[in-house]
């Protein structure tokens, strides 16, 4: 097995005192970011990114991915103890996790959540190990039209499967694309869409957008709801953890099903949030006693947690192998790779095998480090939420704006971050999806280049997207995903007619 050899080489890159220390630091920062409302994983990664510009790429990506794992764990902690999801993807964990905690089973709920999350993450990483070089090899055959078709699939699935109004998804996405085209045009070299403002010459950074949309916007929403923490104290004892771990194999079916859902949603850009909700719904539907869900059913904690983390790690596969991020956080990380001078996509596997396999190996280690760290530090982080929000909220704001300034050292970015804060608040309030907007900002340039190059090949004819079997299949999948809601509605209507005729 080629991949196993590569992975072993990866471990030799990843295992060093320096890297393990970075993992622990990343996980701790991540838990902090995940615990604090308003500071999520995408935001945490954006804030840390400017600090990694001077690091070597392997160390930098290890720090950022560890931060991501930590944030996912931190989000579950607050869901269970405080009934406040620290991350959107841990909303589903509150349904049964918090009732369990209220019944005095906080330790059991936390251990279940962390262990099943670790299982989900490992399932995702194993998939990456097995499939990534195959996917990358397959993608080496891609040329511009195929790449454009894959971008099309990504965005079509947001529209077709996203759950939000398709028009709102289109608006959010195309706002992202148009923001990405501000500034220097890489093909013609002309400066576009600055409307005469010099501050826009360098474009609008997606990092500023993430900080504004996810940080400031989220906090405005949190403040509007009038936040109050009523937490449940938890001490995690080793004995309890082991006892819970011994119970885990009993839920093998839920674990496997949730991991599969998570992996699927992570590779397609459904993302961890959709994965956790879907997994919870599936667990409830297939359970023998669905009435127990919502009242502290362990399976209601295991299912969303496993899927959440499986999706989180599986989202790295399309990012590495195709250059298409599967979640908002992966989008930010991919932006980071490009800033470090790496080119995410199939060629990364041949150009920088050290980086790719070091990263994959670090995902195994990072998740193990994360489970241990989070179990050890839960009481500490839970106590952070006892600090009144009137201190924490403004501090997060300060961190966000200082983070926005450190991205490029431009004072005008503070105003852009503030504007994105308002946009994020309004968009979230009215169910405009934010993730497609970030994805569009990150891969906007690449999508545009792919489109323009395809047009150059074909002398301006759209028929190039149907010119061979590969690109036609990809475009076909994209169109099917795009019209999924329409197809579904038609089938339902036809079935409805059939039923009324037989009845």
């Amino acid at each position, binding site marked *: 097995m080629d991949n196993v050899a590569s992975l072993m080489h990866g471990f030799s890159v990843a295992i060093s005192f320096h890297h393990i220390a970075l993992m622990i630091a990343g996980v701790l920062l991540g838990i902090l970011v995940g615990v604090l409302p308003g500071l999520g994983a995408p935001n945490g990664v954006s804030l840390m990114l*400017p*600090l990694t510009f*001077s690091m070597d790429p392997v160390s930098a990506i290890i720090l950022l991915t560890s931060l991501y794992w930590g944030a996912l764990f931190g989000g579950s902690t607050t869901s269970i103890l405080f009934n406040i999801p620290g991350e959107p993807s841990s909303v589903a964990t509150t349904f049964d996790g918090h009732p369990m905690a209220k019944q005095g089973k906080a330790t059991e709920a936390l251990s279940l959540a962390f262990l099943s999350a670790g299982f989900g993450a490992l399932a995702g990483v194993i998939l990456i190990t097995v499939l990534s070089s195959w996917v990358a090899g397959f993608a080496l055959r891609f040329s511009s039209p195929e790449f454009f078709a894959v971008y099309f699939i990504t965005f079509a699935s947001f529209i077709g499967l996203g759950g939000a*109004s398709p*028009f*709102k998804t*289109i*608006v959010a996405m*195309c*706002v992202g*694309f*148009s923001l990405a*085209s501000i500034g220097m*045009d890489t*093909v*013609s070299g*002309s400066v*576009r*869409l600055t*409307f005469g403002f010099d501050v826009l010459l360098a474009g609008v950074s997606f990092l500023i957008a993430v900080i504004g949309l996810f940080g*400031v916007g989220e*906090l*405005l929403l949190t*403040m*509007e709801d*009038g936040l109050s923490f009523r937490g449940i104290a938890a001490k995690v004892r080793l004995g309890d953890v082991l006892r819970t771990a011994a119970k885990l194999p009993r839920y093998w079916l839920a674990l496997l099903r949730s991991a599969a859902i998570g992996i699927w949603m992570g590779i397609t850009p459904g993302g961890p949030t959709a994965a956790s909700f879907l997994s919870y719904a599936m667990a409830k539907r297939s359970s023998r006693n669905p009435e127990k869900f919502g009242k502290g059913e362990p399976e209601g904690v295991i299912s969303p947690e496993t899927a959440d983390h499986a999706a989180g790690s599986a989202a790295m596969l399309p990012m590495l192998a195709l250059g298409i991020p599967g979640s908002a956080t992966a989008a930010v990380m991919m932006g980071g790779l490009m800033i470090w001078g790496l080119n995410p996509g199939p060629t990364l596997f041949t150009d920088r095998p050290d980086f790719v396999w070091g990263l994959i190996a670090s995902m195994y280690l990072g998740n193990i480090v994360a489970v241990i760290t989070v179990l050890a530090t839960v009481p500490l982080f839970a106590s952070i939420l006892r600090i*009144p929000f*009137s*201190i924490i*909220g*403004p*501090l997060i*704001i*300060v961190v966000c*704006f*200082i983070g926005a*300034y*450190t991205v490029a*050292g431009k*004072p005008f970015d*503070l*105003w852009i971050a*503030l504007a994105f*804060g308002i946009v994020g*608040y*309004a*968009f979230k*309030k*009215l169910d*405009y999806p934010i993730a497609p907007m970030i994805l569009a900002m990150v891969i906007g340039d690449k999508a*545009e280049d792919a*489109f*323009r*190059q395809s*047009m*150059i090949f074909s002398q*301006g004819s759209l028929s190039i997207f149907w010119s061979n079997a590969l690109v036609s299949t990809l475009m076909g999948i994209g169109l099917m995903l795009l019209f999924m809601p329409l197809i579904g509605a038609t089938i339902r209507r036809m079935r409805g007619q059939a039923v009324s005729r037989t009845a």
Partner: protein
Amino acid sequence: MVTRLWAETVVALFTLAYGLTIVWGALEFGIGWDTSGPEAGAFPFYTGMLVALGSLATLALTWSKRLSGRDMLAEVVLDGERIHRVASFFLPILGFVILCATLGMYVATVVYLVFTMRFQGGFGWLRTLTVAIGSAVFFYLALERFFHIPLMKGPLEAALGL
């Protein structure tokens, strides 16, 4: 009091205006075909167009629901109390950004935290000043000293010679 209907309408009009602005900006660079392929304005033109069309569709959908009486969209998305809470959080942030641009980020951090903690949160002076000055010092040490990333500075830092 803001109802869903008006919130949807205002946001859709805003995105419509944004989309049209992009379309207008793209026209300047040509949206057709030149010797080297599609012109620089083509891609932004179509994305701006999609933003505008999507906004129009949202507007049409919102108002058709209302006019046909299927859904009056009369639920209140923002009442007086909520507006007050959001504004009392947002306005200090606005002040903070203005202070950052004029007095530098360290002074702005201290002033902003003192305002929110002492005058909005009702904490004692000792606790307030500890947190406010402590944060500014922490950011100074972490960013300027450890990571060598300078933040915006104002007249105070110049006077102190930092």
